């Protein structure tokens, strides 16, 4: 662990020094913030909130090609493996919630079976976090799910904005390497820097308005009301779109398909794409039977995955409290409200 400061006026030079990396920095688009690698931006805007599409897409892209297949003249099939390029990337402006989300995805794609594609990208990725001064969204509730506006989980570096400079905390070797690309730009910290950083962190914590109380009681509760009509009522206006899951920083479900480009000679590829438990065909069996036939069972699945199954498997929530699913739901389904009512259901 290494602690330094860097003046904001020196920040562009740091970015420029990272020539061996593909650098992503938040860019303002008309639809919100996006992590962009267009090389034009050399600083993090002061009014940056968080990207609409979370950083997961740079590690777990919406489309991953596994292999290509082609029929050869003697009617055999040739397979050509496709692997992600091994090119190092740095993502700036990762909010602590999104960093914790990557850590949660590491658990899913790691463990006893390592997902080759995921880890090829993940190992090449350096996550530079930015502690929150203000909650990026009015629906932020990270404190309720064991996170914080300055959590270091999953990050390689945590930056804290101190006005004219950043407090830079390198948390991993990858993080330290990033500082070593331009060592002269980083200054030793003073006790005042540290004090200021602590103050900023504490203040940010106080600004979070939304809370989900008693989240650790939820696993038992969800189990208890699994078959209740509670879920029918809560999901009655759900549209079965993919917004809540596709834009969730931890949702990681996928589908694998063979895409045929030509039938004679047979040619195509096998690809993995994002999928979501909110689409009706997610659990559709080839017989036509669907074990999750309605919106109630689909909403229950989304919340139970985050607040029951993930806890049973890994003893942590699969929700980091970023609030995107609340802000973007077209019909106002609010995970905090639904879970609060779930907790009080039958009381």
């Amino acid at each position, binding site marked *: 662990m290494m602690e330094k400061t860097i003046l904001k006026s020196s920040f562009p030079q740091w970015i420029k020094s990272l020539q061996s990396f593909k650098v992503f920095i938040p860019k303002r688009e008309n639809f919100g913030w996006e992590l962009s690698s267009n090389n034009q931006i050399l600083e993090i805007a002061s009014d940056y909130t968080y990207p609409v599409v979370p950083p997961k897409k740079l590690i777990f892209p919406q*489309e991953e090609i596994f292999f290509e297949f082609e029929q050869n003249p003697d009617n055999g099939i040739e397979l050509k493996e496709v692997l992600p390029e091994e090119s190092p990337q740095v993502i700036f402006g990762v909010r602590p919630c999104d960093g914790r989300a990557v850590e949660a995805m590491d658990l899913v794609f790691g463990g006893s079976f390592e997902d080759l594609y995921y880890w090829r990208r993940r190992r090449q990725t350096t996550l530079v976090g930015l502690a929150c001064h203000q909650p990026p969204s009015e629906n932020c509730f990270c404190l309720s799910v064991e996170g914080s506006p300055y959590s270091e989980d999953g990050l390689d570096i945590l930056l804290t904005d101190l006005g004219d400079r950043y407090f830079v905390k390198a948390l991993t070797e990858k993080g330290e390497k990033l500082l070593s690309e331009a060592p002269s730009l980083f200054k030793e910290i003073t006790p005042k820097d540290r004090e200021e950083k602590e103050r900023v962190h504490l203040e940010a914590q106080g600004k979070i308005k939304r809370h989900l109380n008693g989240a650790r009681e939820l696993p038992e509760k969800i189990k208890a009301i699994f078959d209740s009509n509670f879920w029918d009522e809560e999901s009655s206006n759900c*549209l079965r*779109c993919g917004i809540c899951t596709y834009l969730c920083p931890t949702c990681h479900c996928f589908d694998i398909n063979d895409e045929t480009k030509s039938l004679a000679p047979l040619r195509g590829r096998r690809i993995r794409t994002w999928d979501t438990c909110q689409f009706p065909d997610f659990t559709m069996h*080839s017989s*036509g039977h669907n074990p999750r036939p309605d919106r109630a069972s689909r909403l229950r699945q989304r919340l139970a995955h985050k607040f029951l199954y993930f806890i049973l498997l890994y003893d942590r929530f699969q929700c980091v409290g970023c609030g995107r699913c609340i802000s973007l739901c*077209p019909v*106002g389904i609010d995970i905090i409200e639904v879970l609060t009512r779930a907790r009080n259901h039958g009381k």
Partner: protein
Amino acid sequence: MVSLDQLKEEVKKALSSGKVKYFIGYENIGSGWQVRPAFIRQPEDVDRLVWTPACFHNLVRFLHDEKRRRAREKNPDIRPVGLVVKGCDSRSINVLLQEKYIERNDVYIIGVSCELTGVINITKLNQHLNGLKPQKVLFGSKGTFKVIVDDREIEIEAPDILADRCLECPANFPVIADVILGEEIKRNPGNRYQSISAYEKMALDERWSFWQQQFSRCLRCYACRSVCPMCYCDECVADSIAYAVTAETTADEKAQKTRWVERNPELSENIFYHLVRAIHLAGRCVDCGECERVCPVEIPLRLLNKKMEKEAKELFGYEVGFDPAQPPLIACFRDNDPQDFIR
């Protein structure tokens, strides 16, 4: 003015007499000013209902769910579903009737007049308030909105924050309903195609690169399709997530299903999805604007649909959703059609 008390009274009447199975209106989200579709099943729950300029949602879309539910159940309750509809929404009921997707007695309609206003655009509201957070957004006196900010009341002229589609709306009054609340006030919609005028000035190659740019960020979450009152097909050619497979579907049928669009979010597939959808909405879209409102990456889908609406109007004199007895655009022709291939 539409009276909320009267609305609640009408809903209460419909529910307690057993005339409707349930009622769909709008309620506030938490303690905020934003609203969401509310399912009211008991007469005593009518107090949840609100009617505000944030009632954007076109509730007609929920009739698809009801139809599917009926198809699943052995002895379904076939009483009508009650809906609150605005002028635009009521036109989409007419299209469903035209297409015989529903019957008139499947739905009990409480129409509300938008009078001189309509629904707001949140982005415009936020820009207007310049960082201030609204506590309440209400209808003001003739042609204004009343926004409560920091316990102060601000009066805003409707055109400043109205949704674009409301500025171009030809139906501020419901065209089909069982009960109508509010006054029928004539309003000049101005240029009905204002929002596409800049787009129409673009050269073909400019339009192509414009749409490539827009569609390249599509995530294919299918929110636009899922929220659309006209998108009710059990199996959608433009969408790979909805296969109509039942226990009766044979293995052969399953194996031979054509995937018109692949699941990957590459530009070719995204363009296919959106353009096929646009064509399928020509002569059916009532410009309720829901597709554009729900898009998380703000793809300007209204442009496409509005352009198709204009084409239908100019080429075939076809106006969508004013007459439930009118045949659908693609199922009719006129004897005096200027082109002779049909004769």
